[in-house]
Structure formats: structure tokens, C-alpha cells
């Protein structure tokens, strides 16, 4: 029964999160929903990073880069690709299943070029007679996820021989190059001005018999929560399969794992591909939710935040990392309220980061596997020590033994 406590707690938390947007009705509803959606976004990043770094030992600093690849892929596709029933005669275009696939020309961000958008010029000429269709958002998110997976695969192949600090530096370099490229290619990405994305549900959506506007928070809340649960489900399935066993062996000793028949190259590349695809999916959904993306997504501080969330939750348990991310994101936002002690005002907009840093330092010093993962591990390993002693005693005195604990993976 004690072993089931984490599972029972998980179900209760899940029910709470599912019911929360329906029962919460305070005036700050949109603000709280926004915090939760962002928390789910960080939870996906922290959980997938935990699988990559905590389980597989591939300490990557490029996770936000893959997230940005997902966001920019869908952003660029939705920004530049259209379907038109008629050719524009101005844009790059090709016949596509009875319509025209139109690629809009990049025009940059300066005011003098804003009217040089070939599609806009064509539409002006058509005078509203022709209706063009933007790339569907779900397809953009799917493409973003695939691009993240491909990038993860390629980086995974490149870092096969790199370990520890070299791997961290390589992935950090990858992320920085990506940021510099996005910032530099202003004509295409709009650089620091940011690339606008259509909302997650451009035409609104009907849920539970109620119509929700594109700007309403409830649909993105459930979308991000569903993505988080899907990612956690996939990670749980992987962790309990031979994949999970092999990547942990890879983390422990790559050479020993290979000497025991594990194709370490395959699993190293696989874990990069899968976790980077998850980061990219999260980035794509988040991009459509906030509707604007900038290279600032790739700031090292953002990556550090994800690492800190995973470390404080527990790097070797992706569920703990996700819980850590949600709790920290919520706390970081809610602790913005300043307060007064002895006539001195404590400006929490700044001090909350100090507290956060302090919590990270304390965790690293005293709780190497985070604050939440040991709790889950405690319940999971209840009785193991007693069983070892009992089994040893029965070996000495006669046959028999305690219950078996470690399940063989599928």
C-alpha cells in the first residue's frame, strides 16, 4: 500500500489540474491560467531534459535550442507558406493538389519594406475576391516537432564521442549559434523584433459545449496539459522498457554497457532524438500560445532555469523534474509581491531570484538528487533493506525469501 502512495498522489494532482480551470473563478483567472500554461511548458522541458541528462547522462545545454527549432519551424511555416486557389504571379509558387502553394518573400522589419509583401500586394490586386489559407497550426506544430527530432538526431550523431563538459560545451555552442543565426537573419526571422505566430486555435474552439475565443486561456491550458501528460506517458513507457534500462547503463558506464552488447550509439542518438522532439513540440505549442517568438528564447538564463527546475525536482526522475518545474514556475510568479519587514520593503521582483538561486545551491549541496525525487524513491523502495536482511538471514538458516522488487523491463 505504501508503495502506491506516489501513484495515488499523482492521480489526485492530475484530477486537480484537470478540474482547476473549471472551478477557479477569481478575477485574476487569465493571469493564473497563463502561469499554469507556462509551468506546463517548463515541465515538458524539464522532464525531457531529465531523461536526456539524468537518465542517459548526456548533459546537454542545448535543450532550449531544440525548443526554439520547434517554435521557429512552425512560426516560419505559418508566416511564409500559404495555399491559394489562384497564382499570385508575384510570389514563389507551385501547383499543389489543384491549388497553389505560395511562399511569401521575406521582407524584414523596416517600415519601408512592410508593403513589399508579395502576398499582400496580390491580395490587394484581387480586392478580396480570392481567399488564401495559412498553414494549419497543428501541421506547423507537427513539422516543428519533426524538425526538432531531426536536429536532435544530427546533434546526437555529432556528440557520440563527447562526454561530460565537452558535451555540455558543444550543445551550448549549438544553442548560441542558433541564437546568433536567428538574430542575424532579420529578413527571414525578423530578429529581435520577433516573429508573430497565429494563435493556437485561430478560429476559436468549442469545449464542453462552450465556444472559446482564440485569446481565451482554457483551450491552451488543456492543450499544454495534454502535451505534458503525453510526454510524461511516453517517458514513463520508455523508462520502464529496455530503452530506459539501456540509457541508464549508458549513463553509468558507456564502455561496460557496450561490452555487454548494448548498441550505445543507437541509444545515445535515440534519446537525443526523442527528448529534442519533445522540447520542440513544447516550443511550437508555446509559440502559438504567446503568438510571438524571439531569439531571447535561447538565452542561457532560460536554459539555466530549466536545468535548475530539473535539479531542484530531481534530475534522475522525470516526474520529479516536471513537478519541480511546475512548483518553481508558480512560486517564481506568485512571489513577485513585495512585502515590508520592520519598515523595510523587500522588492520581491528581484529578491525572488535570489531565493531561487539560494534554493538551487542548497539543493546541490545537500540534496544531490533534488527535493522531490528522493520522496518518490523512498516510497518505491520501502521494505528493500528489510527484505535484503531477511533474505540474507534465510540464506543462512534455510530456503525462502522476501518478495521480489525489481520488475524486469519489457
Amino acid at each position, binding site marked *: 500500500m505504501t508503495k502506491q502512495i506516489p501513484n495515488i498522489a499523482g492521480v489526485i494532482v492530475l484530477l486537480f489540474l484537470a478540474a482547476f480551470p473549471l472551478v477557479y473563478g477569481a478575477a485574476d483567472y487569465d493571469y493564473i491560467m497563463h502561469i499554469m500554461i507556462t509551468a506546463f511548458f517548463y515541465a515538458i522541458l524539464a522532464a525531457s531534459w531529465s531523461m536526456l541528462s539524468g537518465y542517459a547522462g548526456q548533459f546537454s545545454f542545448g535543450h532550449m535550442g531544440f525548443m526554439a527549432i520547434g517554435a521557429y519551424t512552425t512560426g516560419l511555416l505559418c508566416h511564409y507558406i500559404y495555399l491559394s486557389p489562384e497564382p499570385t504571379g508575384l510570389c514563389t509558387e507551385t501547383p499543389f493538389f489543384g491549388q497553389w502553394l505560395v511562399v511569401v518573400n521575406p521582407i524584414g522589419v523596416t517600415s519601408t519594406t512592410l508593403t513589399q509583401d508579395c502576398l499582400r500586394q496580390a491580395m490587394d490586386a484581387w480586392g478580396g475576391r480570392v481567399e488564401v489559407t495559412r498553414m494549419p497550426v497543428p501541421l506547423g506544430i507537427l513539422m516543428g516537432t519533426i524538425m526538432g527530432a531531426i536536429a536532435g538526431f544530427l546533434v546526437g550523431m555529432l556528440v557520440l564521442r563527447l562526454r561530460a563538459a565537452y558535451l555540455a560545451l558543444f550543445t551550448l555552442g549549438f544553442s548560441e549559434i542558433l541564437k546568433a543565426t536567428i538574430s542575424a537573419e532579420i529578413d527571414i526571422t525578423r530578429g529581435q523584433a520577433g516573429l508573430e505566430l497565429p494563435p493556437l486555435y485561430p478560429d476559436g474552439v468549442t469545449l464542453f459545449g462552450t465556444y472559446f475565443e482564440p485569446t481565451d486561456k482554457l483551450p491552451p491550458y488543456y492543450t499544454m496539459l495534454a502535451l505534458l501528460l503525453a510526454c510524461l506517458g511516453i517517458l514513463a513507457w520508455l523508462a520502464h522498457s529496455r530503452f530506459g534500462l539501456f540509457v541508464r547503463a549508458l549513463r553509468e558506464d558507456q564502455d561496460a554497457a*557496450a561490452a555487454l552488447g548494448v548498441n550505445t550509439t543507437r541509444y545515445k542518438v535515440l534519446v537525443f532524438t526523442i527528448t529534442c522532439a519533445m522540447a520542440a513540440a513544447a516550443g511550437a505549442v508555446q509559440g502559438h500560445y504567446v503568438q510571438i517568438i524571439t531569439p531571447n528564447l535561447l538565452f542561457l538564463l532560460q536554459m539555466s532555469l530549466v536545468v535548475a527546475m530539473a535539479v531542484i525536482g530531481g534530475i534522475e526522475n522525470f516526474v520529479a523534474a516536471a513537478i519541480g518545474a511546475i512548483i518553481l514556475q508558480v512560486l517564481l510568479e506568485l512571489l513577485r509581491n513585495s512585502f515590508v519587514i520592520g519598515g523595510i520593503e523587500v522588492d520581491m521582483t528581484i529578491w525572488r531570484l535570489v531565493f531561487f538561486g539560494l534554493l538551487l545551491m542548497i539543493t546541490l549541496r545537500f540534496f544531490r538528487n533534488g527535493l522531490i525525487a528522493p520522496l518518490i524513491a523512498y516510497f518505491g523502495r520501502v521494505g528493500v533493506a528489510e527484505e535484503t536482511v531477511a533474505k540474507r538471514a534465510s540464506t543462512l538458516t534455510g530456503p525462502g525469501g522476501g518478495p521480489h522488487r525489481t*520488475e524486469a523491463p519489457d
Partner: protein
Amino acid sequence: MIHLKVSNLHKQFGGLHVLKGVSFEVNGPELIGLIGPNGAGKTTMTNILDGAIKPSSGTVYLNDERIDQLPPFEVARAGLGRTFQVTRSFRRMTVLENLYVPALAMGHAHGKARLREKAMEVLEFLTIDHLRNEFAQALSGGQQKLLELGRLLMLNPDVIILDEPFAGVHPKLMEVIYAYIRRVNDEGKAIILISHQMDSIFSLSERLLVLNFGDLIADGPPEDVKNDPAVIEAYLGAEEEETA
């Protein structure tokens, strides 16, 4: 029929010629001791045999399959397993999980229950079944040696290289390792045993190979090798002088 054929193996690290044309064959379930002073090239040869490093020249065939250019996991699948001089257990994985890794990697598992049963059988033989759910890092050095041997039983290779299996092991656990070596050998597997413990090597081995600074200076029955002047000069004599 097991057949390992090592032909004219050379390995150079920069200007250092670590192996100088080593050749030998293993035919059937032989129990072979490999000895030599520190720096003789024993570990380098082991690393070449298991695919961890590539030879500068020369070939290695296992059961007519060339393995010297294969990556380690393919060498393991071809039928050659090894332990390491310094124990390399998966420390933050349980004892049972350590055993599952090779079985699943080799595709030996036929259902969860059978896999578990096989692993428990191995642990009982090695007398560490009571530790099955403990993390490997909780085991003593000797128990971790046994765990490494257990992983090889799950891998089930044709040729096993044991690199210093007796180093730092309590005499009681050494008996278990002795029993292990004899059992595995009786099951029809070839064993190459690397050790500095001459008593163990001479009592267990049917044949001895002696490496000295990259040269294979002797290959024969232990009694012949023991009296070989070149071996006495290069290794056995030196050891006696050291102990004196």
C-alpha cells in the same frame, strides 16, 4: 566448436609499440591463463579483442567471423565477453537490473518471468541473491566482482576474458569465483584468465600465455611455462625478487 584466432596483432600508441605481432589460437573450451608484468600489453590485447580499441595491424577471428574491426557491442554479440580490471558495475542500478542489461541486449530474454528466474538463478549461484534489489554501489568490492561475473553469465558468450577477477577479493568470495570459472568452463566456454595471483593462475589454467613488453614469449602447459628461462627472467623471477 569455439575457435578464436589472433594473428600477428600489433598495436602502437605513438612511438610506443605495445603489442608486437602477437598470435595465438583458442580451440574449444580451453581455460587459458594470460600473465605478464605490468605494461606487458595484457589489457591492451583485451581491449582489442573486445573491440574497445582497434589494432594497428593483425586480425582477430571468432568462430570464422572477423571481429577486430567491430564495435564492442557487436563483438559481445559475436560471442566474446569480458570483465574489467577495475570493476565497472552500473552503480546506480539495482543488482537485478545489472543482470537484465546483457540479457535484454542479446535478446536472450523470453518474457519477464523467465528473465527474472534466470537472473535469480545466477545470483543464487554467486551467493548474492539477497542483494538483488540493492543498488550496485551498495555492494562491497568483492560482491561487485561477482556481479560483473553474473552479467557475463547473462550475456552467455563463447569466450570469456576475466581481467584480474581475484584482485582485492576476500578468500571466501574467491572460492565462489573459482567455482564460477570451473562451472563456466564445464559448460563449454573458453576462458582467458588474466591475473597476477600465480597460485590461482597455475591451479586453474590448462595453458599459459606470457606477454612481455608486447611479445608473446611463452605459450604452453603451466608446468612448461613455469620452467621456461625466458619467463623466469621476464616475470616469475622478477616477482620472486620483488617479494624477497
